[in-house]
């Protein structure tokens, strides 16, 4: 969400909002005028009441056209017809039978106020004041003429004058304050855009960190753990593949297609192991957990799989890849820390969510005791899954084992 209106739109928006405010007030005035006329017609059986209500109704309908179409034609039509209505209303109201001393009365104020609040075609302070002044002037002239026709005393209508005054104050204030540079100075929109960019950058940085954790850091840890001796061929192959990926490719943008890369598929094919990996025809086109199986194989971990891999087809390729990468990190964690040679991988789909659980019967751990500098679970697992609107739950008991459940909603990028 962005905060407020930008400077270049404020003029038009404020002008339209003020015009709408005027229309609402005008409709209420005309409604009350019609109501009073109808009460007179019904209660006192006064035929002039019907005429008064019709005049107010006609003005209200014309104002509706002005509000709806915002054209010069309808504005002029409303002003001319409205002036005619005020003239007719003056002749009706100033009948001596009603006992009004002069045209300074509330019944004549109602249509006149509605005439001032025409709003009119176009936006901006000057044009609005022009239309409003025309409405005031025409109403004034119509009342004067009506009083002459009716032979009544003409007097300036204070309520109409006050309405015109309020109208002028509001419009002039709007014009004066809008010309100041407060909106531009505050730079809320620039700030909003900047925040958006920072959020995108942070998002990519998290992904990039997770990737570096999985690749460079993982290899460094493997080399340190291996100690002196011949270089493991799988480690060599992994370093070669990942160096090419880090240095030579746009991996930050391509991560969504990571699982589909030829090199990955090739590695997956080589890592095929009939005992541990389901490889039926259905999983050839749907997303798979290739990285998870490859990681298990490289780590020498036997992975028992339950559930149907085809449920991964419910996920978009990017989301499936993120789930695969997170599960792979869980498997690596089992191999590194659990002290066991096997783990279980359960895959399921329920309630619109795909779940992958990685379970082991290893040494277990207390999450609160995990060192501050350990970032695998945080970046490679939690951050990835949370970026896909998913959740990670970890149950671990020392001496019993660990279960990590990764859940992501179906669909996704």
């Amino acid at each position, binding site marked *: 969400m962005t905060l407020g209106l930008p400077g270049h739109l404020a003029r038009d928006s404020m002008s339209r909002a003020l015009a709408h405010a005027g229309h609402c007030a005008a409709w209420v005035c005309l409604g009350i005028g019609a109501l009073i006329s109808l009460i007179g017609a019904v209660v006192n059986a006064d035929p002039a009441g019907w005429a008064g209500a019709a005049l107010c109704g006609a003005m209200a309908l014309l104002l509706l056209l002005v509000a709806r179409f915002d054209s010069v034609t309808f504005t002029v039509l409303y002003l001319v017809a409205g002036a005619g209505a005020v003239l007719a209303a003056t002749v009706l109201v100033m009948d001596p039978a009603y006992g009004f001393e002069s045209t300074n009365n509330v019944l004549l104020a109602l249509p006149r106020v509605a005439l001032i609040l025409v709003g009119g075609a176009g936006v901006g302070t000057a044009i609005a004041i022009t239309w409003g002044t025309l409405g005031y002037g025409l109403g004034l002239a119509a009342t004067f003429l009506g009083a002459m026709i009716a032979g009544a005393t003409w007097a300036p209508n204070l309520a109409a004058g006050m309405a015109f005054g309020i109208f002028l104050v509001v419009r002039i204030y709007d014009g004066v304050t809008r010309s100041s540079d407060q909106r531009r100075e505050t730079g809320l929109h620039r700030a909003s855009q900047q925040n958006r960019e920072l959020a995108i*950058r942070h998002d990519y940085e998290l992904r990039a960190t997770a990737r570096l954790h999985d690749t460079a850091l993982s290899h460094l840890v493997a080399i340190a753990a291996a100690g002196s001796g011949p270089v493991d061929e799988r480690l060599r192959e992994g370093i070669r593949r990942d160096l090419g990926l880090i240095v030579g490719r746009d991996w930050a943008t391509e991560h969504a297609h990571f699982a589909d890369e030829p090199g990955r598929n090739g590695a997956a094919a080589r890592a095929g192991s009939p005992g541990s990996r389901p490889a039926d025809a259905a999983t050839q086109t749907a997303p798979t957990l290739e990285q998870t199986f490859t990681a298990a194989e490289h780590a020498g971990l036997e992975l028992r799989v339950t559930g149907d891999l085809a449920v991964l087809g419910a996920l978009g390729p990017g989301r499936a890849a993120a789930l695969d990468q997170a599960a792979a990190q869980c498997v690596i964690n089992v191999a590194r820390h659990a002290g066991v040679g096997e783990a279980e991988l359960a895959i399921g789909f329920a309630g619109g969510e795909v779940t992958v659980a990685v379970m082991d019967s290893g040494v277990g751990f207390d999450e609160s005791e995990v060192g501050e500098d350990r*970032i695998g679970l945080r970046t490679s697992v939690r951050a990835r899954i949370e970026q896909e609107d998913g959740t990670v739950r970890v149950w671990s008991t020392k001496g019993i084992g660990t279960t990590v459940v990764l859940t992501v909603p179906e669909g996704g990028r």
Partner: protein
Amino acid sequence: MNRIRLSQQEADPIGGITAAWIVTIGAALALGTAVVQTVAHWREVVSPVAAIIALGLVAVAGIVAAVSATPQRAPFTTERLWLVVGLAVAAAVAEYVSTIGANRMLYDDFGSIVIGMLILALAPYCTWLSLLAAGLLSAAVLSFLVVGSAMATAVDVPIASLIAVNSAAVLSLSAAAAGYSYAIVDETLAWQRKANRAALQRDAELRAGIARSVQQSQVSVLGREVLPFLAGVMPADRISVDDADHARELAETLRHALKAGIESTWLDDLAANLQLTRAIDVVVDDPSGAADDLASDQRSALTALLSWLSDSGRTTAIEVVLAIDPPRHRITIRAVNGAAPPTRRELDRFAAVARAVALRAEVALTGENVKVEVTHVPD
């Protein structure tokens, strides 16, 4: 958020702030109207004390409205609207008492128009529904007064007509206020939807560039030692003890570098950006990552403030300290004045924007520095 729960001060904070003076003008006009009308119908006044109390209540209502709407006291709450309207209605009752039994003309009573003017003046600060409710309830109270006055009026018309006539001012002005509030919020939300769509399109263009720059910066983290080391191990036949030790050291270094990256927040990124582009020191002290608890609009408000402070020589150094003081989070911004130090009025504008997005903000200025303290309760 929807139109029923939003007012202009929330949807368009700057618009709300610029409207502050219209409340003072509206209050002054309301008081002026009340005085003129009272003088004009003084011959009908039977209780001068009540008439003066009525004018006093109008003045108090106007002062409460004007003071409550100042940016320093933002946000304007619905309770304040009801207080102002309550005082204005009390003024109308006092006016009724002042002319009781002798009020020949309702047309020259000020109650209805004064209430309406105050409601209209407060339109930028209230939801359209609360403005409409205030107008309708005031009109209902005034109707009871009309029934009481009906016996003394000069014209013989149905009581319903008198009620309608007397309510015209308050109802039409309240309708104008509600119409304005509805329309400006509607316009703002429509713009925001449009802006968000445009931002989403722009995001797609931004992503590629940002991704590349992130990749380059991350690769540069590795470039000096990690990549050459791994490249050296790859073709080797054996790993030596030194290699293993070196790998361990590099792993620790890299882990720390990655950890620092993970724990940085948008505020750290903003500070780095400002430091780079504005060439002033911007230090963020956020040990618990509390900056991430701020909502999107709150981040924008703080970003706007920090960007503005760091621009045009207003300050020479900025320090942002975040602390958790349950249940509130406190953000303290201290800035050393530059060649063109900020004024209180300018800072109040940002404080009012902050208040509009559910942050409490206090501003303190001295000749040498500026302190803005913002607190909030995370969702």
